[in-house]
């Protein structure tokens, strides 16, 4: 398999070092809620990352794409497949990662 490193390829990833084997990529769905949606302008988007990436890696990618997310980085939490997760969790193909700004239910 030829891995193309240069050229006008539309990729989702930034300058992250490929982790895992052979640099194969996986695709997850990212959800933005409340203030996170205001900051990115999106409710959801697909994100392609290297296989073996962590939630932290995904978040780095997202902040690189949407620098204004930095505003809530310190107080947000993440959820993976509808459960709260730490940033060290590994994401797999077809996972759903939610960006959860400080909640205010009730």
């Amino acid at each position, binding site marked *: 398999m030829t891995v193309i490193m240069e050229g006008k390829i539309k990729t989702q990833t930034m300058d992250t070092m490929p982790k895992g084997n052979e640099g194969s990529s996986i695709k997850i769905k990212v959800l933005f809620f409340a203030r996170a949606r205001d900051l990115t302008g999106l409710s959801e988007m697909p994100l392609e990352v290297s296989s073996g990436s962590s939630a932290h890696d995904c978040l780095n990618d997202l902040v690189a794409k949407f620098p204004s997310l930095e505003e809530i980085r310190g107080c947000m939490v993440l*959820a993976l497949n509808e*459960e709260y997760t730490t940033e060290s969790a590994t994401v797999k193909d077809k996972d759903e990662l939610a960006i959860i700004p*400080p*909640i*205010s239910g009730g």
Partner: protein
Amino acid sequence: MTPEEKTLVEILDEHNPIDLARYINYVTAPQAGAIATFSGTTRDSFEGKTVLELRYEAYKPMAIRCIKSICSSARSSWSLHSIAVAHRLGPVPVGVTSVFIAVSAVHRADALDACKFVIDELKASVPIWKKEVYANGEVWKENSEFLERRLELGRQDGVSGGKNVDFEGHVKKGCCGAKVKVNGGGVANISTGHGGSRELE
């Protein structure tokens, strides 16, 4: 035939008011001598500003999971019959109920304590957000209960470090790591705890 113990969790889409009687009815049972309820309503002001309405949104499937998990935790800490929790989404005008909890139990201490637990946990961990709308702006609110709990969410050990539980009961970890909070913090308020309110125009 005696009604079974049951739990109802509903997140209502926009413009669907909460029918309080329906949920009270749901938890009512001949053997349950106590029904405790909590109704959260939109207040007309915050820090001197007039509030026109609150607008709610949710990560709905996860919110339902989290609330069910909170109900499970409540059952493992108190002897309960039935539980009903409803939360509205969309705009909720002043004075109107946005969240309603009804808990039935044989004895009132269980019902009252569990009811408080459920609303406290909901405010700390359920992915629902509200925007406070004023005449000249609007701001996303942030529950202080969440900000206190934030670092514990997602941790696998599931037990709140450092806080003592002042009642009996074993807390089962659900998907949101529902924690038991020490009584004495007062009423859970709609409040911001992170850098104050930011007003968006």
